[in-house]
């Protein structure tokens, strides 16, 4: 029987294991240095905030693995011998594999700041990071102020976590507005305001110069590059993005770039070794995607795809229409298709932006200047139906059609305030159109005929 070994028990590795099991009887072994069981990484924040206990963020009960004959090994893979097909694991015997899937995820970026390895300086990615945060910032007496460096999704989550324990937070964002490398201006502005509503000291256009230690090698303060200001603090959160966690592969002979280089079949340069999830790097970016996609959903899709290949149906990784979501403090964000921030905005892309006058609700729809073709939508504070937007993208609908049928895509809970009327009125005003909104139709939504 073939031995399939998967390094990493995150969403990518576990999706691969589950689907291999569905398709075959192969022996499956998952090795993880992080935890005994799979957990939802994106939910770590809720454990610190007290919304859930760690056991709640484990999607499967502990008996699941044995029942599905997925063997779990706890240990750190220190090296791979690709000739003899052996993994050496710290604290465990070597493992032989017939096929190997590398799904080791990411690690927080550190950009060589002076003092970045002091006590009290940390990222937020792993279970170990969460445990460390409980030590570094258990409450507002031990941690009188925290400084977060890096204005992305993890940064704002860390800020929300610390605020739940009333810890004062200063949030250093390099960009001129929060996450505006990705978000269009109006949306980014709205999130800036919302961050301040949560009493977070947001510093835009601000960089970290260095981290100063006290006599015990603990963080004492940080210096801001632009102003030279010294901010006393007990915790520095480094949240300036993540990069593939592949240091252990340096001498393995597997081709590495920033991540593990893979082709469209998720195969590395060495036969029978695959890489999926955050740590995989495509030779060529797929469509508008980045070569490395550190997103929950893409990890899952790559896991499903590689399972097909391993079970005899060699398959290309061909993700469908781009989608993503996040939550910025109290504001939910969803995106379908492509809407770019100012920096990445395409020449052919027109962006229609609408924001409610008082509620923290807004949308941005991108469409093609020439053809009026719908390219994508960002929504803040309005939930949208994935199925409907996925269909519209496939059918290559135009912007007018989207506006006309916007009510079909609404996924907010029943009785919620509807904004379609206002949105379309502004669309008409902006572009001199006379689109009329159609009422929500169950028939269209569920494609009944």
């Amino acid at each position, binding site marked *: 029987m073939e031995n399939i070994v998967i390094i990493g028990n995150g*969403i990518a590795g576990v999706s691969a294991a589950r689907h291999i099991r569905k398709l075959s009887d192969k022996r499956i072994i998952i090795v993880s240095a992080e935890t005994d069981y799979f957990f*939802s990484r*994106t*939910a770590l924040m*809720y454990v610190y*905030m*007290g*919304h*859930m*206990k*760690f056991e*709640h*963020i484990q*999607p499967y*009960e502990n008996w699941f693995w044995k029942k599905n004959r997925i063997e779990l090994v706890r240990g750190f893979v220190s090296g791979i011998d690709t000739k003899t097909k052996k993994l050496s694991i710290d604290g465990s015997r070597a493992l032989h594999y017939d096929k190997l899937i590398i799904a080791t995820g990411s690690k927080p970026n550190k950009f060589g700041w002076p003092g970045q390895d002091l006590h009290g300086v940390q990222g937020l990615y792993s279970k170990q990071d969460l*445990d460390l945060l*409980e030590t570094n910032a*258990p*409450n*507002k*007496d031990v941690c009188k102020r925290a400084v977060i460096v890096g204005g992305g999704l993890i940064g704002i989550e860390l800020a929300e976590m610390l605020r*739940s*324990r*009333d810890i004062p937070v200063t949030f250093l964002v390099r960009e001129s507005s929060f996450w505006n490398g990705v978000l269009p201006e109006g949306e980014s502005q709205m999130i800036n305001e919302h961050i301040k509503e949560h009493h977070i000291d947001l510093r835009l256009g601000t960089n970290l110069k260095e981290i100063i230690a006290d006599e015990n090698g603990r963080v004492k303060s940080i210096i801001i590059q632009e102003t030279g200001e010294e901010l006393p603090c007990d915790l520095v959160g480094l949240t300036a993005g993540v990069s593939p966690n592949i240091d252990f592969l340096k001498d393995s002979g597997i081709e590495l770039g920033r991540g593990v280089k893979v082709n469209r079949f998720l195969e590395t340069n060495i036969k029978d070794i695959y890489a999926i999830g955050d740590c995989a790097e495509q030779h060529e970016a797929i469509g508008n995607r980045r070569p490395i996609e550190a997103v*929950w*959903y893409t990890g*899952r*899709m790559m896991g*499903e*795809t590689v399972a*097909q290949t391993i079970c005899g*149906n060699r*398959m290309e990784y*061909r*993700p*469908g*229409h*781009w*989608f993503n*979501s*996040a*939550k910025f*403090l*109290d504001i*939910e964000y*969803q995106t379908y298709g492509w809407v770019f921030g100012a920096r990445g905005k395409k020449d052919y892309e027109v962006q229609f932006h609408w924001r409610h006058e008082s509620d923290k609700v807004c949308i941005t729809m991108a469409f093609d200047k020439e053809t009026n073709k719908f390219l994508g939508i960002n929504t803040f504070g309005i*939930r949208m*139906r*994935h*199925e409907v937007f*996925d269909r519209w993208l496939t059918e290559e609908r135009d912007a007018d059609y989207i506006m006309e049928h916007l009510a079909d895509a609404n*996924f*907010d*809970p*029943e*009785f*919620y305030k509807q904004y379609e009327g206002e949105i379309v009125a502004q669309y008409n005003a902006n572009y001199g159109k006379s689109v009329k909104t159609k009422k929500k139709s169950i028939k269209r*939504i*569920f494609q*009944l005929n």
Partner: protein
Amino acid sequence: MSNYDRSMALTGQPPVTLSRNQKLATLLGMFGLAILLLAAFNVNFPGKATWLSISLMAISVGTIWFSWDAYSKKEPGIKNDGVWFKSISSKGFWGWIAGIALTGFYIILYFYPEYLGLVSGGDNKGVIGLFDPLSKALSGNPASQWFVYGTLYTVAILAFGIKFIWKYRHNRYEKIRTFSVMFFQLGFAFLIPEFMARLNGSSVLNGGSLPYYDLKNMWPLNYYNFEGYRIKGFLSSGDIGFAMLIFGIVTIFVISPILTYRFGKRWYCSWVCGCGGLAETAGDSFRQLSDKSVKAWKIERWVVHSVVVFVTLMTTAVIYSYLGTDTSKYWLTKSTFLLGVGGLLTTIFVLVMVFKREQFQKDAKYGAIGYFVIIMALIGFHYFSGEGNVFLFKSETLRKSYSFLIGSIFSGVIGTGFYPIFGNRVWCRFGCPMAAILGFQQRLFSRFRITTNGGQCISCGNCSTYCEMGIDVRAYAQKGENIVRSSCVGCGICSAVCPRGVLKLENGPLKGRIDSNQVLLGNDVDLMNLVNQK
């Protein structure tokens, strides 16, 4: 594991710590409770009406003040910070204390009302005596332990309802739903029956007297509705009484199936029902304590359906016991009734087995067949043997044991007393025969479902954790499946706590409602087809 200090103290660190306002509010509420406690120990308050008002006001204002301070200063949004750090809401010390106190209260209420001051045929004393003025003002009669309980129950739903509305003020579904349970509790469960009692003996009722009747309370939740004394009461009260008896039958056989078909059982369980009302308001802080394991689900299915069988047998026996045998006196006789019950159950059983067979799991099929055979055997056994006790036991024995085991112990002592230990819907999930019948309809004949939004789930677990019915919502959502479960009461909290907008409660077409496709949108279309092949 989190090494957060799970302190027993009321102080401690945020988010557990209480603000000064919250401490004062707690003090005020405790003062209100202390008055009731003192009254229970026969401290005689001069001016009962005044002291009762002070007590109820203190409890209400304390609760509302506390929640105002906890929620109003924060941005609208999910307010679950520190839920698992607070000892009251995480089965800690205060959780157990609250559980023991509530359980004790229920035991005294159900079995030793004399300790609360109940005096039959004289002036009430103690805490029941304290409620006499209010009871007399409403119905004209002295209070009973049930009046005291009803009043406190209503106060709890109203005060904690306001708390709940504050907590979820960004969510209109939750706000409207909570207004609804507050309205039905105050109007239908509390005031209307009290006012109706004033009519007893009046000419409107032809001089008859109606039994205490909460109109929204259907059989089998009010398992006693068709007992002999109530039927006599209804029939003695002219057209109104007769209309109410008919209404009682129509609600379960006509109104409830139609509403459940259109909206799911939530129209009742989380919008109207009093048990649900208390669970959703006063019990909201304990919703995360329900057991989500597959094992708990298995136990739930056996226990709750056994209660349905029990209540059906019991009610049949009770009605049977007071029916006559002479067709010339009244068309409904013992034997036509038994035949009717047998016929109805057979029809339902056959229809379900023919049309919905494929939707049953193996154990559900065995269970259904087993129970059906037992019921029919008992009915047949009796029918052909003629006289004797129906179903081997005296109907009175059946009625008494049901009332004791299910009506008192399960729904009260365990169902509510154990809120802080097993979660706020223990009764609704494991014990309520009404919920089981509505759930059966919801699973098989309803437009209601919780739609999963394509591929957006990140398996975080908020939905499962905060499901009061112990449904592992995430298990469906992460596969892209809709959630169609008989136990879902449609409270909407899974959808509310979802950080990625994945869940939506909705009434849609029957086609494609239960899709067991393990495909997640956003994938390669060919791969989706492959993954979907079974």
